[in-house]
């Protein structure tokens, strides 16, 4: 790793520790929910990461369609995997939270429903890819699919306003409906989570790329051997 990469990783690490302090000690318990509210910092920040990840997937998918460079596709692929993981986090943390305050861990609230859809869509994404043998076509198809699937993200965000459900909506155009120390903790967790996402994306893209390179090399070795065979044979 280069120096700046070490720096970034360390920064995120320190940020995470600070963030724990803000989440669990510096910010106050909520009036009705009490300490349970602290799930929010993880819950909402995970949602932000998931949305960002899918945005990145869609974006780099489109870039790949226009400029056929494998790196763009590899970024899209790497990002989708992270997004799936973080959507799972949102679902789990939301369920835990819901169990505490709604007395049920799942209802068919629009926000919850659309989030679940998002999870299914990005579960299908790698499956679709893996089931197409032709690499280039797989990349194209996944790009188009990623582009269509990302429509669900604004849908989730708007679901709160369009269809009244029971899922809270505290971040509005008017600002945050909460005490300033909570806002600070929340915003800080956004920054830290996005930093973590950046690191993860970087590592994962590397991984995806190495896998591709490995396969390339394997093929090259095979073709060298085949050529050798042919010379021996004739």
């Amino acid at each position, binding site marked *: 790793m280069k120096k700046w990469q070490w720096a970034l990783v360390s920064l995120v690490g320190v940020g995470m520790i600070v963030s724990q302090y803000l989440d669990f000690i510096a910010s106050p318990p909520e009036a009705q929910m009490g300490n349970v509210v602290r799930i929010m910092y993880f819950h909402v920040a995970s949602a932000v990461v998931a949305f960002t990840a899918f945005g990145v997937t869609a974006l780099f998918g489109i870039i790949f*369609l226009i400029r056929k460079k494998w790196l763009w596709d590899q970024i899209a692929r790497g990002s989708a995997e992270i997004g799936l993981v973080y959507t799972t986090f949102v679902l789990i943390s939301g369920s835990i939270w819901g169990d505490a305050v709604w007395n049920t861990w799942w209802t068919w609230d*629009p926000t919850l*429903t*659309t989030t679940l*859809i998002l999870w*299914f*869509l990005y*579960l*299908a994404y790698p*499956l*679709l890819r893996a*089931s*197409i*043998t*032709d690499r280039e*076509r797989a990349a*194209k*198809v996944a*790009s*188009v*699919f990623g*582009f*269509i*699937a990302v429509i*669900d993200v604004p*849908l989730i965000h708007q679901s709160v306003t*369009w269809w009244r459900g029971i899922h809270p909506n505290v971040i509005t155009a008017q600002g945050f409906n909460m005490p300033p120390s909570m806002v600070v903790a929340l915003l800080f967790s956004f920054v830290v989570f996005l930093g973590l996402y950046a690191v993860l994306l970087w590592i994962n893209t590397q991984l995806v790329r190495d896998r591709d390179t490995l396969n390339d090399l394997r093929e090259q070795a095979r073709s060298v051997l085949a050529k050798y065979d042919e010379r021996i044979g004739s």
Partner: protein
Amino acid sequence: MRFLRTLFAMVGKDLRIEWRTRQLFISSLSFALLLVFLMGLVLETGAALASFSEAGLLWLLIMMAGLFSLNRQDDKERYEGAIYGAYLAPVDRSVVFYARVISHLLFVLVMEVILVPLYSAVLGGAAQVSWAGFVLVLLLGTIGFVAVGAMLTSLSLTSSLREILMPLMLFPLAVPLLLGTVEVTSATLTGGNGAVIWWAVIAAYDVLFLVLPGLLYDFIAEV
């Protein structure tokens, strides 16, 4: 002109094959009917369903049956690579998408004509239905659903898991549509006409998924 002529040729071909074998139709319909029957059986509804559940199950059924036949129809194109023959036609390749939408729409609509009355007979409890709204939402909902499905079959054409991935992609993508149609249908079943916002969602779906694939088709049509 040439586009339309090709479109008609393709739809005509689908109808001809369908008419020849009637196979797809019979199997999809029987599949749907059996589902109706089984649902009636397991839900043990002497008690009528809530109008929302009634509408919801109806749409689930339509989608399941539609999906089943979409998969099958697609097989026919893949047998001996006939779809590539269509790609050789001297028109924009999106014609394949539109032909698929039309054939499939016809197919599902005819199925609904038989399925819906039967469904209401077995599971329905609605007394005063506003028919115009009901039929309209059935039509628009089906269009949206078929369009999404046709787009996805094109996408997953070369996927070895096509058949099973279809529902996995189709249902999530169609859920907002499903929610809309179910809300509206449920309203029409009790004599209302549904909220404007839901009609808007349905209409938006129809337009979006009829236009978008046409534009994106060149990216996905290549073999």
